[in-house]
């Protein structure tokens, strides 16, 4: 399930997460978001990439060390 995808097709993801998903060739609709309403953050995309859900097609970015306060 991908709760971040809305009825109107919009995927709830912050801009940097959208950018990273494109860079890694990951379909955001497959990513589990950890924020409110399933909002996808950068670390969710990174985790998805590492979890092997999708083959990363580009070098991965460093995951943020600090989570949302």
């Amino acid at each position: 399930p991908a709760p971040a995808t809305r009825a109107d097709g919009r995927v709830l993801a912050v801009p940097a997460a959208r950018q990273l998903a494109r860079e890694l060739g990951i379909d955001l609709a497959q990513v589990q978001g950890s924020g409110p309403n399933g909002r996808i953050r950068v670390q969710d995309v990174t985790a998805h990439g590492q979890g092997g859900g999708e083959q990363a097609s580009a070098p991965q970015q460093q995951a943020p060390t600090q989570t949302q306060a």
Partner: protein
Amino acid sequence: MTKQMDFDVLVIGAGPGGYHAAIRAAQLGLKVACAEREYLGGVCLNVGCIPTKAMLHAGEQIAAARHAADFGLTFGEQNLNIAKLNGWKDGIVKKLTGGVGALFKANKVTHLIGEASFVDPHTVKVGDKTYTASNFIIATGSEPAKLPGLEVDQQVIVDSTGALVMPDPVPARMLCVGGGVIGFEFSHVYNNMGSKVKVIEFLPNIIPGADADAVREFGKIMKKQGIEIATETKANRAEKKSDGVHVELENVKTGEKTTEVFDRVLVAVGRRPRTDGLNIQATGATVTDRGFVPANTRQQTNVPHIYSIGDVAGNPMLAHKAMKEGLVAAEVIAGKPAEQDAVAIPGVVYTSPELAWVGLTEAEAKEKGYEVKTGVFPMSASGRAMTLQATDGFVKMVVEKDTDLLLGVHIVAPHASDLLGEAGLALEMAATASDIALTIHAHPTLGEAVLEAAEAVHKQAIHIMNR
């Protein structure tokens, strides 16, 4: 990219879309040229965004001097040197367009002077020289739409470009045909400078695209400031006579016709994409019947190495959309994973107060099937607004009912355009009204009205009663 080409990218048009594309492409290491036939900075810097804001500021200072009497500051007779006003505005334009030239040089963007015309999909002609490039970015912008019966002479019947030159003396009676953003910005300027201004709009509402409540509030304020507004009204024809321009106005509902006399008539009925002289057919790129060159979210036309950005690519015709699309096109060409994936494109009317919005209007949200709740906070309850002598307007927030997800923010307030930063970021970050309500906003700031509108969504605003 192919070796034999003169350039990796050739950008056509140096408006905000084109110069952003050219500079970003150069930053990313590409060999870039930008062809421009008229002026660096395009419509935006030369005859659009920038000179209008200069005129608006000048007009607002005249109004401010009048309002200063409220706190005991009065002045002897006031004098407006109109030549100096026009010169000051031109100076700002010159500084900024000169800046674009300097940035081109510093970033090693080759500036080709002249009209670019396609010879084949990889070749353009500029002046009497031809250049080849691996990629092209069409950024040729737009021009004012014309209105049959009102021929622009740039003296008494003007379009937005002519309206930027304030005549001496300031026209006593001014008609603005078109109640959109550009029309209201000029009407506000002329009104503050002393003209008696009438705005006519064909549609039932002014500022199409903005939230209905915000537009109602905005219209009320403009009227209070002395601007006459007639909706569902059109101008049929204009005749120049010794006592002014006689314009036949028609109420489109009743068909009733009247003739009124003005000293200046501004035609501001929209803009249309501009591809004349470009010989775009030589590339195979599609042009719509309305003249747009459509692109995908990577800004590519149907011919993949030909990109289209800005006004010529489609609505909304706004500089910041052009800039974003310029950056995306440049990055895609450089092999970066860029995409025009903006959740929302903000809009602003730079009057005083400003009308600014980003995201869905209440009506749009409902149309899209959202169940919405809204929160409104009036500027009259803002301490900061009181100290700025500017308590007209409100902040309205449109939020999805179940999820608290922010859908749109609509602001009529002083500095509304500055407050858009938070609203825009919130939409892009998929923020909820709670995210905004839980964030400390400095006191006393206008931004507290954004906070309070978010609280009002939850019926927990502090400085108003929540119903």
